[in-house]
């Protein structure tokens, strides 16, 4: 099967993630969307791995997954911190710093 549909799929998923990041107000919603973007990366990697016929892409994807998880953990910690300090997690509400 051709590689292009996979890449297209990943691109679409990535774009949906971007849409989510840009439109969600809730920080956790944004994090979810970031997950979509990261997931798109993994699809790319695994698809390429298949195309190359080597394990390299998969290894890459595993690293990517691990890193994403680490990011999410930190992100959630920050969100909780934000919640503690502001009693909400609305991204656009946290805009005391500007200019």
């Amino acid at each position, binding site marked *: 099967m051709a590689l292009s549909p996979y890449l297209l799929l990943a691109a679409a*998923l990535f774009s949906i993630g971007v849409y989510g990041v840009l*439109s969600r107000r809730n920080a956790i919603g944004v994090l979810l969307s970031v997950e979509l973007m990261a997931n798109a990366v993994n*699809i790319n990697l695994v*698809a390429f791995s298949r195309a190359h016929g080597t*394990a390299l892409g998969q290894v890459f994807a595993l690293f990517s997954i691990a890193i994403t*998880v680490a990011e999410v953990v930190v992100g959630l910690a920050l969100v909780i911190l934000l*919640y503690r300090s502001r009693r909400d997690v609305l991204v656009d509400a946290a805009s005391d710093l500007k200019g």
Partner: protein
Amino acid sequence: MMDQLAFGAVSAGLLLSALLVVSTRNLVHAVLWLAVTLVMTAVLFVTLSAPFVAGIQILLYTGGVITLMLFGVMLTRRQDGTRIEAEVSPGRRGPALLAAAALFGVLAGALSKTPKLGATTSTVTPTEAIGHSFLTDNVLAFELLSVLLLATMIGSIAVARRHDHAAETKPVGGRREPG
């Protein structure tokens, strides 16, 4: 042919669930839709002969991330607690759509302008190869990853832990009483 059909079905589910992740009003639903997306991705990986990655995907993402996210939702629910909403700011939808569409357009355009990318092969990579790769070529990255995870752990705890709040309001000079 079966490949295409399977791919079509999986990708349709994938995209649909992803769209729901970003559009559903209920945040808990969004988390669950993300779980669906991640599982569908794992399925896709299986069709791409990457069962190990699929397994990790399920384990780490669906098992770990989704749980974390749910915790996060619970912890940060509004104090009135009536609705758990993933508010979408109405003014942002249009521009966000525009940006996402433009991004997709650029990527799709690049894809379409790129001549024959070749097909996927049917070679199935054995899991051992992956493990081998971890411990040889990428051992350094692997080791580093552990440091990364350690740092993440320390950092997350330091950020999220509550108990040092009260203590730190009055500086203690960082020195404990001897003995």
